[in-house]
């Protein structure tokens, strides 16, 4: 079949095969379960790296198409729904990010108990949704994969979570489903205006080319889609699922959720909301800019007073993801490139954070920073990892956060409008607040004296934990030290969007 000659489809097939493989194992054979999971994750990683190489080769060979590796197969004739695939620079790096986090996530849940088989089954179903979302360029397929990614979350938190898990799982799923409802409406609206000549289509590229959505409709559809994805991107005031959800989720799920799933929000915002409805984005984008600006500062201030490690990190995610949407709404190359870098950076470092928190929690059985102290003595490896994650989060040069934030700030400040520049200055202030809450945690948790004598007997990281965190640390350092490599991949992908927005201004 022709469809199987496209590498992209394998990003869906491999997780599905892994699920099939896992279904054959039994819960007693933990070794077999691990082997299948690791094999699946490794194949995905190899595929992702291969994809980056293919992408670079295509671009190097002068292929300037907006999307490469495109392919389209009819799925449901009457509605013109297709399985349309294609990637640009942004999707390529997002797929790479997802592969990294899935890989690290498998190792972070090495000792998952109970029901390891079922856990990995749902985990890979979630990955299927995530990868499917990033490779699709058809509204219907995107939405379908989006839902595939959301549903397993309920079970993963509800069954394997900790603390008030039923409440959190329900809250998270319901709020995200609420977002999907908005999104669904938006997508239907877009579909019915997708073409001026009556040949309706779901393909994003075609819709953008037709540019047939009337401005009056855009005013309705833009907020619907933006809020729909904004809920997932933890935009103020729809961020409230994030602290509870992350606090209850098991380690690997937090990693995948904060690391990748929240990026679906930012990705969707520009790929669907802004790309397809530039006129509305121009005229009412400032409302959302204000909201995301609030997110950035608000999340950072909230994080300052939390005492639960996961809550701190969840609020910090609100702040950092706010920065993603904030930069996307600046509508210029630099800021949008910065947004994607920030997605990468935040994905990796939050995954690292959650992995480390999970490992510390697995040992101390508490996440309250008031009950811990001096962990650096007891578990130096995890301590150093935590410090590196913290430094990446507060934007230290050489780690990923710095490159991303600087690109965002400098890009946003290039905006000709004074309102945007003042907001940028306000957003920039978050770097100090971030330093405050990160150092507060580091000082309380890692430094100082040991609070609980029982903690003295705890052990440092095991090999699989080291592997999981080292993978993420390496990726964080790679982005921080060689940002240009990623910027070159990402930057040109924004040409269509920025051109469309520029054309409107003329």
């Amino acid at each position, binding site marked *: 079949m022709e469809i199987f000659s496209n590498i992209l489809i394998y990003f869906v097939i491999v997780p599905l095969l892994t699920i099939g493989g896992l279904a054959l194992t039994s819960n007693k054979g933990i070794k077999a379960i691990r082997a299948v999971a690791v094999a699946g994750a490794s194949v995905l990683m190899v595929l992702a790296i291969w994809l980056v190489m293919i992408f670079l080769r295509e671009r190097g060979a002068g292929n300037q198409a907006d999307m490469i590796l495109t392919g389209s197969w009819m799925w449901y004739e009457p509605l013109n729904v297709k399985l349309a695939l294609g990637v640009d620079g942004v999707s390529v790096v997002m797929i790479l990010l997802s592969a990294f986090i899935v890989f690290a996530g498998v190792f972070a849940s090495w000792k998952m108990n109970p029901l390891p088989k079922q856990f990995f089954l749902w985990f890979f179903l979630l990955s299927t949704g995530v990868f499917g979302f990033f490779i699709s360029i058809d509204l219907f397929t995107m939405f379908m994969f989006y839902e595939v990614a959301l549903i397993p979350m309920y079970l993963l938190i509800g069954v394997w979570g900790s603390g008030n898990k039923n409440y959190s799982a329900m*809250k998270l799923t319901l709020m995200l489903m609420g977002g999907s409802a908005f999104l669904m409406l938006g997508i239907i609206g877009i579909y019915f205006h997708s073409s001026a000549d009556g040949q309706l289509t779901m393909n994003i590229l075609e819709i953008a080319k037709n540019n047939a959505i009337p401005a009056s409709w855009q005013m309705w559809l833009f907020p619907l889609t933006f809020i729909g994805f904004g809920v997932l991107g933890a935009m103020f005031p729809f961020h409230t699922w994030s602290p509870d959800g992350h606090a209850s989720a098991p380690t690997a799920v937090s990693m995948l959720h904060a690391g990748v799933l929240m990026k679906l929000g930012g990705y969707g915002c520009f790929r669907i909301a802004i790309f397809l409805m530039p006129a509305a984005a121009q005229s009412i984008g400032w409302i959302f800019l204000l909201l995301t600006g609030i997110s950035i500062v*608000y999340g950072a201030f909230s994080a300052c007073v939390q005492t639960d490690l996961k809550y701190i990190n969840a609020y910090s995610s609100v702040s950092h993801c706010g920065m993603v949407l904030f930069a996307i709404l600046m509508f210029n190359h630099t800021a949008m490139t910065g947004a994607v870098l920030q997605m990468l950076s935040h994905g990796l470092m939050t995954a690292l954070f959650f992995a480390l928190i999970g490992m510390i929690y697995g040992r101390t059985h508490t996440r309250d920073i008031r009950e811990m102290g001096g962990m650096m003595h007891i578990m130096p490896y995890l301590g150093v990892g935590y410090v590196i994650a913290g430094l990446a989060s507060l934007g230290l040069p050489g780690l990923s956060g*710095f490159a991303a934030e600087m690109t965002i*700030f400098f890009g946003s400040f*290039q905006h000709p409008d004074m309102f945007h*520049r003042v907001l940028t200055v306000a957003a920039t202030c978050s770097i*100090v607040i971030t*330093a405050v809450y990160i150092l507060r945690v580091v000082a309380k948790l890692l430094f100082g*004296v040991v609070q609980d004598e029982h903690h003295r007997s705890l052990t440092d990281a095991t090999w699989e934990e080291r592997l999981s965190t080292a993978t993420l640390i390496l990726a964080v350092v790679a982005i921080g030290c060689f940002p240009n490599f990623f910027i070159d991949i990402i930057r040109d992908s924004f040409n269509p969007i920025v051109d469309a927005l520029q054309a409107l201004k003329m």
Partner: protein
Amino acid sequence: MITNTVLVLVLPFVMFLFLGLAGVKMPRKTAGVLGVAGMLVTTVLAYWVAIDYFVNHPQHEQIIANVDWLNFTPRLVARMGVLIDPISAMMLVVISTVSLMVHLYSLGYMCDHHGHAEKGFQRYYSFLALFTFSMLGLVVATNIFQMFIFFEMVGLSSYLLIGFYYSLPAANHANKKAFIVTRLADLFFLLGIMILTFSTGTFDFDALVGLGNMDASQKAVGTMDGLNFMGIPAVGWALVFIFIGGAGKSAMYPLHIWLPDAMEGPTPVSALIHAATMVVAGVFLIARMFPLYVLVPMAMNVVAVVGAFTAFYAAAVACVQSDIKRALAFSTISQIAFMMTSLAVSADGGKLLGGHEAGLGYMASMFHLFTHAMFKALLFLCAGAIIHAVHSNENDQMHGLHKYMPITSIAFLIGCLAIAGIPPFAGFFSKDEILVACYERGLGWGLWMSMVAGMTAFYMFRIYYLIFFWKKHEVHTEHEPADQPWTMTLPLIILATISCVAGFVPFGKFVTYNGAPLETHINWTVAGTSVGIALVGIALATWLYFKENPKPERMKNAMSGLWTAAYRRFYMDELYQFITHKIIFQGICKPIAWFDRIFIDGFFNKLADLTGNASFAIRRVQGGNTQSYAFVYLLGALLLAAITGVVIVMI
């Protein structure tokens, strides 16, 4: 030369990685010796670069090599590179010298009394190497963005080293404080860069400030013409913000509060980072951007006023401190303020002052930076030796140590004489030129700074006497205090020698704002006055503190209010504590977190509750009770029958 400079950077970085990753696997001493060896090679290379530059490039042009690092836009590119010009070559020498001394000294200092290296020895050397790398990277930065990056990096290494004894709560607080305060300053630095690059569209120093003339700066300022924000030109905002960034690192009032606390780190670290090198990063930054500042008198005046005030403030506080490291820290703040002021007074109203000696202040500032690094490092290392011997920072645990530690005492005395500005020691020459530059700007400036110079002499000799004389030493520990092993004494001797002779370096020939040699002559009117004032200060200190007597106590009681205020650093820490804890933490963070829980979260929970309650209310309809179904069915049937009946009748 470029290759060598890059090597100078790479070597410490490799040492950092190597000792950081593999250090735990090797014996502690080996790690230390490796660190010292690596630093020795770095120093040799750095000297080679500096000599090569000054000998082979008499025009003092800038030598620049760059690689692109981060392309913000095709035009606005952040580069990484090396820039060699007089001040960076000079800084290479200063940093590598002091760093080597500190590396060597730490071999002895970081051991207990049996000569066993402390826990974390490898980590210590790895962090020292990281710091050296960052600081060297800072001074060779080719663009303001690279400068910013290394500002952050030195901030990090300072954080790590202050918190070296991370289980001590004091160190733990101090490093947090240092990082956050300098981070706040760096925020302004970043904003300044953003404003500056908004219209100039470049980070590069050669495009922003150039060297040798004002053309580049004039062009840069020209592009920002007409941009205003709240009535102040954008370029003014940019430069003031950048100065705040520098002020944070250089501990200018009111951002100085982190530096005294930073003394919680090991003493060699204080000598390297918090006395000689990192704290002058701000001065270096202003010096690098000097032509721009000259063209914007408003920004220059801010620098001058802040510098002059800080110099006085810190000197006043230093006069009453009892912890010798804190006293030295305030002395450092005061001396850095001297350098800042000196830079700022060399221009007024957009033009350089001083006729054929134009830019004297710039040269004097760099000269003082150079000499100060040497003698302040010396003083700190002496303090370290003393602390190592008596296990306390408080001067009432010391007294009368001259008899026990003669070498340390003499080295400390040389440092004191140098900082007080007594000829022929190094400080005299540099401070004299600073004062000349101040008098050039105006009599008031000159008198003010001369007064501070007098206070400097007073408080330094106060410390000296209280440590080494005052009364007979009471031995508190099991060992008698004594001079330390050669690893610690050798750096003292080397630095003391440099402090004696460094003043005779014809600095004006090498380092000037435009690369053209500047002939300096000692202005004996100014020099005479300042030496006179210094001698008065020393005499006063001798009268009060040389031998035990009740005069200081009486003075303290007579001015107890002032004394306490100065001892408590004029309550700046309390003010900060109030702002951060009461206003920001209690007044902003807590309410926001509360708002989030109660309103945002509450709203969505209420929404869910509402849905739940509504379902609960109507759930009886589907109660599963057969009989109620049947009843409703019956009612419905009757209703339908009635309607049908009525309809039939109507028809």
